[in-house]
């Protein structure tokens, strides 16, 4: 028992030392390096007219037909960074099936297209609930409606979308996507 107690004491002292090094020194060192790239380290904030309007990386709740709309979100009431997460409903779940059916209809009605034209990301919630992106297909689907509501030439809006399509990283990583906040900020800039 005496030996066990000695081990526990050694463990406690070592844990204390390691906590100082790994739990304080290491994150502070990384923080220090982060000051060299403050834009990244502070969350890639997007400013419009000097005012922070969000993070390029974090999706936002958007309402109003004059905007490009994001995916459905399971984070809180939608895009709540205090409650990130997914629906966690299974691939054959009846509730999810009903929800997706309804969303397909809503998107089709809103964009004035057939339900078969609605892409998957438009009717499914993301993993984080904060997905900043939509697929290029979903962005293109929204061009006609956004142009109409804003009274813009669809070709102008379409060109804006194409300029915001980001391909796969290094040509092979991940999937092509369009950042909704950046696209909407550019859209607002059109006047």
């Amino acid at each position, binding site marked *: 028992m005496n030996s066990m107690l000695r081990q526990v004491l050694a463990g406690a002292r070592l844990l204390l030392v390691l906590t100082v090094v790994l739990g304080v020194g290491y994150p502070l060192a990384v*923080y220090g390096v982060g000051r060299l790239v403050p834009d990244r380290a502070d969350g890639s904030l997007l400013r419009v007219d000097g005012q922070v309007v969000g993070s390029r990386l*974090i999706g936002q709740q958007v309402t109003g037909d004059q905007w490009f709309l994001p995916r459905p979100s399971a984070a809180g009431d939608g895009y709540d*960074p*205090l409650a990130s997460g997914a629906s966690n409903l299974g691939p054959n779940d009846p509730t999810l099936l009903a929800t997706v059916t309804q969303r397909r209809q809503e998107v089709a009605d809103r964009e004035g297209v057939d339900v078969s034209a609605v892409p998957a990301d438009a009717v*499914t919630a993301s993993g984080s609930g904060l997905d900043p992106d939509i697929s290029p297909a979903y962005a293109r689907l929204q061009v006609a409606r956004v142009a109409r509501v804003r009274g813009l030439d669809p070709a102008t809006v379409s060109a804006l979308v194409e300029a915001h399509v980001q391909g796969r990283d290094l040509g092979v990583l991940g999937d092509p996507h369009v950042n909704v906040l950046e696209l909407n900020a550019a859209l607002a800039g059109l006047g």
Partner: protein
Amino acid sequence: MSATTAAVLQIGLLVALLAAVHVPLGDYMARVLEGRTHSRVERIVYRLGGIDPDADQRWGVYARSLLAFSLVSVLALYLFQRVQAHLPLSLGMADVNPAGAWNTAVSFVTNTNWQWYSGEAVMGQLVQMAGLAVQNFTSAAVGLAVAVALVRGFTRSRTDRIGSFWVDLVRATGRILLPLAFVAAIVLLVGGVVQNFTGVQDVTTLTGGTQHLVTGPLASQEAIKDLGTNGGGYFNANSAHPFENPTAWTNLVEIFLLLAIPFSLPRTFGTLVRDRRQGVAILSVMGGLWAAAVAATTWAELHAAGAVPQLAGAAMEGKEVRFGPAASALFAASTTSTSTGSVNSFHDSFTALGGGVTLLNIVLGEVSPGGVGTGLYGMLVIAVLAVFLAGLMVGRTPEYLGKKIGRREVTLVALSILTMPALVLVGAAITAGVPSLRDASLLNTGPHGLSEILYAYASAVNNNGSAFAGFGAATTYQNTALGLGMLFGRFVPIVLTLALAGSLATQQPVPAGAGTLPTHTPVFAGLLTGVVLIVAGLTFFPALALAPLAEALS
């Protein structure tokens, strides 16, 4: 480029990175773990800890040191959470409740990182970085320590000493994990992973709404979370959260970090036993199982079977657009085969087959390639069993790397291998069988509900930590029971493995004879793969048939 072509090239790029790094990293780890000299900083650490770094330990003492360190870690982390409201950087978060704090303390000390809570709502910055993230380092270092102790059982002879736990712990932390994590953190930082102490920042959105952005010391934690095969996310959404994993290339970096040490350790093993072919054989088994899992998950998620994926047109529920199905499947297969449990997409919403493969990966016992250290010692334990079975078939005394596999060794191996299925199946059966427990925790019903329960217990006992996250684990019963599962699932095999190391180290090696089964050949690799699959298959097939298989076939 088609999605399938891109997926194949993405996997190819990852494999190329791992192939490039496993030799130098494996050799480096061998040098560090068996080096004779202590650095000046290490001597200071030993003095502060009151530790004699040159005291070689018997296996029992080694185990007691390990258990003492883990016990202290659990207590410290428990207390830390229980008083967090009174500490700086708590962001106004309350003290964690007793059952929850116990679960999380055990979870991080056992390298499981099962999370019943949402980080952004429950854990303040100080607990995250000075409590949870410290265990991310040390729990991975404990795994490395046990692995190298077992290897010493093979390399040493006629001794009852298997090394010093304290030295193994400090070296694994200071010379392997910390420098690699620091570099990885900087790479992730450049990729957009946040590192600051701002906390919650309120912004008025472009369209006039209000959003509370949460930031914190993420990059430092993200790096070791993946490198140490821990998996505990700063946020509930884990590596699906754009602040933890902003782009498709940081995603590849994170998958690389999950696999880098586990896939390099066979090289370390081969180097230490002075027969690199032995390491190659182990690596080929691990790599083969991992590749099969990646292929199956990727195919399943791109193929998008199931009512919801078919209706939507793709399996995108619970997945991020920037990753898509392929990069999500690659992450899922890798995190579940390395006992990590971080996720970039939510496995509960995967197709029945894709989700089933992630569950299968876990019940293989986390050896393909497994966690940091745990994967190697887990696979070596199964290799001993494979040698024994081969010996039975040809009627000769089995031996592995010159050490006889006798009654004591086989008993220890059998107990070690049986611990996990016993804990998983009994734990899952209790939750599935008691209606009040079942109803309190299930989100989904039918076979998918059973998958949720099985996944929870398999994940906890195997110290993976990922979840079919619809499972409501935040009840007092589940927090307590899963905590016990993690504890026994971690430390029972560790003690048995150290006993095995002690037993092997005392032996005088026997020279290989005509009846010795060579263990560096493709035949042995095939045999070992078969044993891994058969052991898991025999124990888990009935349960898997009722859960993901039933769902996939219905």
